[in-house]
């Protein structure tokens, strides 16, 4: 690490700007991807009017959201109502801080980690922050003063608190094997060793299911549940405030895809490459690593959409049953098995 303050500030700012914009671009284009893939799965064409293959659709949508009247209904709790959209976006973007995008890059002879904050407690930070995102949805449901929104908010809090437990327990096995909480170290171990999805298949399964629930995606989109609750917690929202919920959902999807890639799919690893090969390739190794990482993220984002059009929504009691009676025991069994496996 360099002692030069200017260098540290410069590289960190560059990373923050790069990664944040990367996520925001993904979040902007994810609705387009979702609409296209949905269309293909239903023998339709999807957006194809704005630009080539509808590629300018996100820009058109953004313009529409910006120019719409930002109406606040008279019957809402104003403070919480305005606060709620921000509270769903911010946690999603905060988690980004600990996600390693690529192997360390060489800048002016110094080695710089491609993480905004390479925390010792990386994954604990993720869980601490991701639990906060439930507040945005619950506040939105409460502040809207509307029965559908409230039901959405209540469902959301029950769902996210239940699945938070499984989410946390499912990765304990990884820490037990890796003996570190730092995400960069977990990736480095996978680059030289085996991807965690092969050593921790049960943990991966539980984590992925819980990730779907945490991001309120089908089959666990009960807080939104168009068919039952109009639009759930964001029924009363319009224009940019609605767009914030939208962006928050897609940013969260990106972040959880990135987490799956980092924790289970080897992060920036490319098969048959070791840490030594990455180091030998220098900054080209960084480019390859980043592309590999983003490919994994994209694949998982596609998986999100793919699952959406395959599995119908769970009923509320089924959701609770799955969370507490199936996934939680599975996660615990995984912890026990990993513990026995790694006995000294």
């Amino acid at each position, binding site marked *: 690490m360099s002692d030069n303050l200017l260098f540290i500030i410069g590289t960190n700012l560059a990373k923050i700007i790069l990664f944040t914009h990367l996520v925001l671009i993904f979040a902007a284009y994810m609705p387009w991807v979702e609409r296209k*893939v949905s*269309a*293909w*799965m*239903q*023998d*339709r*064409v999807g957006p194809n009017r704005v630009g080539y293959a509808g590629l300018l659709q996100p820009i058109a949508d953004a313009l529409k959201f910006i120019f719409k009247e930002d109406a606040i209904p008279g019957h809402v709790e104003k403070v919480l109502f305005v606060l709620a959209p921000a509270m769903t976006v911010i946690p999603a973007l905060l988690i980004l801080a600990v996600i390693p995008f690529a192997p360390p890059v060489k800048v002016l002879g110094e080695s710089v980690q491609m993480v905004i904050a390479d925390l010792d407690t990386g994954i604990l930070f993720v869980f601490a922050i991701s639990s906060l995102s439930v507040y945005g949805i619950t506040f939105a449901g409460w502040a809207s003063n509307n029965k559908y929104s409230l039901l959405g908010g209540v469902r959301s809090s029950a769902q996210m608190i239940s699945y938070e437990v499984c989410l946390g327990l499912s990765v304990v096995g990884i820490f037990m094997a890796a003996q570190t909480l730092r995400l960069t170290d977990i990736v480095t171990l996978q680059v030289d060793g085996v991807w965690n999805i092969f050593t921790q298949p049960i943990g991966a399964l539980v984590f992925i299911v819980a990730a779907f629930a945490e991001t309120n995606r089908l089959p666990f989109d009960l807080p939104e549940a168009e068919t039952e609750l109009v639009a759930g917690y964001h029924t009363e929202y319009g224009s940019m405030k609605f767009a914030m919920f939208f962006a928050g959902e897609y940013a969260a999807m990106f972040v959880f895809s990135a987490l799956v890639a980092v924790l289970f799919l080897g992060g920036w690893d490319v098969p048959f490459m070791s840490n030594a090969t990455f180091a030998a390739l220098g900054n080209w190794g960084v480019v390859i690593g980043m592309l590999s990482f983003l490919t994994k993220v994209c694949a998982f984002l596609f998986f999100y959409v*793919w*699952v959406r*059009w*395959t*599995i119908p929504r769970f009923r509320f009691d089924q959701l609770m049953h799955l969370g507490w009676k199936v996934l939680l025991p599975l996660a615990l069994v995984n912890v026990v098995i990993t513990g026995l496996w790694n006995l000294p």
Partner: protein
Amino acid sequence: MAKVVDRHKLTWYEELYLPAIASGLKRTFRQMFQPDITLQYPEERPQIYDDYRGAPGLVRDQDGREKCVSCQLCEYICPPKAIVIVPGEAPEGATYDYSHIEKAPREFFIDMLRCIYCGYCEEICPEQAIFMTGEYELNAGSRQELVHDKKRLYEIGGLRPDPIQKWKGKDDRLDAGGFTDLRKRGAGAEEGE
């Protein structure tokens, strides 16, 4: 015969759900590569068949004669009361043969906001003067525009050649052998009794 559905207890393999989800994922993935069935509407048009029930229109025959004799049967049968006819006398001095027709519509309105496209008007018309056309694009800037008047109805209907032309050449047929008597008798009946 009643069909008995076997509701067996799920085997442990089925209880896992994961194989079912995997086969579902396979199904949706394959579906992505099926050809699209979407019609790119303004550029591509659906095929309209002859018996399509689009906007009703009035027709003229090959001589350009309005076939409607304003009998008002369509107005009477129209379930949503979309048709309003103002009957009038057949136009004097027209180039075509009106000599055996007394009436023609002075005005003919069809309110397309009321029309339910049932086709009863076409069915009941004794003169085959009104037809359901293939016209399906009914857009307007105001409600008034969607109340089609006589001019618009003839635009929609256009010409429709009539193989029978039951009024045409009636005089000739009457004058030709055998019918002269009938005509005299007709005239006598009018004057006499």
